[in-house]
């Protein structure tokens, strides 16, 4: 049987995300300057405008105790694993490491790289406001992004023009639109791809040169729409929570006793990464970037509306539920993360009101597959009774 082109493209994306070092080194060998980034609260466009390819630091899923001597035991496994990557020198080919002041855990993982992994002279922490839903937040971000731009100009020894930034914004917006189109296939009751495949592509996009990624995505979307058979999605599941780059979780969810499909993932390793756009054609490029990033699906760590305690993310999740029509919701969050599970406390009453069953999966470096499978099978069983 001849392999479909769409399968081959997805396999290539999977190969990139499973061999990030190989991919990064190949870019480096071609003379590209590379910056690792630890959190999505950074304006990648400024890096790209400076001629730098941003590569997200993701985890190895390797159980280890080494980082217990460097960051607190009860920090999430994602931060421990990212710190571990630095200590193991897995990313020594990077020219720079960048993060934004988002959560404390990832901040300490960044510090481990700076203090102990040889990145002292090649690191930058972007200041990011704690609460983004306020008028002064945008101004703060414009100033902070300006400082970052200045740093990069000194770092590379070349100026960054408005045209450079505008071009980067356009490339990144294209990437966001393409990823969005890919996920929108999953709105259908008979999608031509699985949630696992969409999640794989989304993760790969976070470590790739965006122009290369856009080329592959365009091909994929074209082929997925034409050459693939459409199968019923079965039980439709929406995932919401924190960072999760472990494809085994998604494989497990889509390989239960009954047919099930992941139709949307609200996390910083999925939709929160790309479900927004930066305004194009503005005279003030930094202001456009600040506006775009404020408009993202917020990270729970930043999502507080002053004076009301309201969560903007809840409204968006409600909208995604209306648009993607899940039968059930899976809360995935990192063990020891505080903001994510606190959002879960607030989201559960909303789901109860909507009559949507849900389950919690607490993530760690290792996964208790048998335990998770039992919980997920039970969720599907409950859903089938609710939605026959």
């Amino acid at each position, binding site marked *: 049987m001849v392999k479909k082109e769409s399968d081959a493209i997805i396999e290539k994306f999977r190969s990139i995300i499973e061999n990030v070092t190989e991919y990064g080194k190949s870019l480096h060998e071609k003379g590209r300057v590379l910056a690792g980034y630890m959190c999505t609260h950074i304006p990648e466009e400024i890096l790209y405008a400076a001629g730098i390819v941003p590569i997200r630091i993701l985890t190895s899923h390797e*159980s280890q*105790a*080494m980082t217990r001597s460097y960051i607190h035991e009860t920090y999430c496994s994602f931060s421990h694993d990212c710190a571990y990557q630095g200590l193991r020198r897995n990313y020594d080919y990077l020219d720079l490491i960048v993060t934004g002041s988002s959560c404390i855990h990832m901040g300490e993982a960044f510090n481990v790289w700076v203090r102990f992994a040889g990145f002292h002279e090649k690191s930058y922490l972007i200041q990011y406001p704690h609460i983004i839903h306020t008028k002064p937040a945008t101004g703060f971000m414009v100033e902070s992004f300006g400082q970052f731009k200045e740093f990069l100009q000194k770092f590379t020894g070349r100026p960054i023009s408005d045209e450079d930034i505008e071009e980067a914004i356009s490339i990144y917006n294209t990437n966001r639109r393409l990823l969005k189109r890919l996920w929108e296939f999953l709105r259908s009751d008979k999608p031509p791809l699985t949630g696992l495949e969409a999640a794989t592509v989304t993760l790969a996009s976070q470590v790739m040169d965006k122009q290369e990624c856009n080329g592959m995505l365009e091909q994929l979307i074209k082929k997925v729409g034409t050459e693939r058979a459409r199968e019923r999605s079965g039980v439709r599941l929406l995932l919401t929570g924190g960072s999760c780059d472990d494809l085994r979780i998604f494989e497990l969810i889509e390989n239960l006793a009954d047919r099930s499909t992941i139709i949307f993932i609200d996390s910083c390793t999925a939709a929160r990464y790309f479900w927004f756009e930066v305004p194009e054609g503005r005279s003030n490029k930094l202001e456009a970037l600040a506006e775009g990033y404020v408009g993202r699906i917020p990270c729970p760590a930043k999502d507080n509306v002053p004076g009301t305690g309201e969560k903007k993310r809840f409204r968006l999740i409600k909208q995604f539920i209306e648009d993607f029509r899940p039968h059930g919701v899976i809360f995935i969050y990192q063990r020891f993360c505080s903001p994510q599970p606190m959002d879960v406390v607030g989201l559960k009453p909303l789901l109860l009101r909507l009559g949507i069953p849900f389950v919690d999966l607490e993530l760690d*470096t290792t996964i208790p*597959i*048998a335990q998770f499978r039992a919980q997920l099978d039970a969720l599907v069983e409950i859903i089938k009774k609710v939605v026959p």
Partner: protein
Amino acid sequence: MNNGKIVAGIDAGHLNTKAVLIKDGRILSYAKAPTACDVLAATQNVLNEALKNAGVSPDRLSGMYITGVFRNMVETRTLNVGGTVPEYIADAKGALFLDNKARTVIDIGGNVHMAISFDESGNVLDVIENDKCAEGLGIFYRNMAKVLGVTEEELSELALRATKRVSVAIQCRLSAESEAIDLMCQGVEIEDIADAIARFIADRVAAMCTYVALRKKVVVAGGLAKSQAVIKHLQNMIKEEVSVGDLPEYVGAIGAAVSYGGAK
């Protein structure tokens, strides 16, 4: 001074109580028994057995010296205890007695593990003990052998035959225990689960060791020193050759006796 006399060293540990008899710098005999909930009875039992093994009557003992987590409980009861020795001093003295090139001892016991560095006279230079989440490695190892339906010796042998790398949660032994059981439910080979258990232990000990300068030569003491699988992984992780003597479980008891002149 106890020149020419017989000295008993007792290590009243979490899982086992151990006794050694030493005369003129020579180990005459040793014995161990589970501490369980009666450390006094365990101490009496191991002492009697050690005396019997050496063919020595109790009246020939010049003194009995105690170390281990339960040392104070033994001292305050009816046994005639000559003195007590903190575990880290006993470990340092005992390790040096057994190997005069030793300068660091890593003791992996039932509930506590620690690393102690010392000079050529056995004077302690640095001590680090496990954090709370890593407590109970020996108890964990014993429980896991029970869960897998093998002896502790077999657990190590199985681990050495592992062919596939699987892991258990690293944050605490309770999570590790539950994930090892999850691996069983997934049908993972027993050898690979045993290896994950041994690696978990070595990983926690190696993490603790990053807080102390490991002076050469490094020796390992305690019940888990007998697990070759744990030792293999520990060596890889700390990137240091480690040595395990003939009586790793008795290092503390020997050190208690030595501290009070047993080596003379």
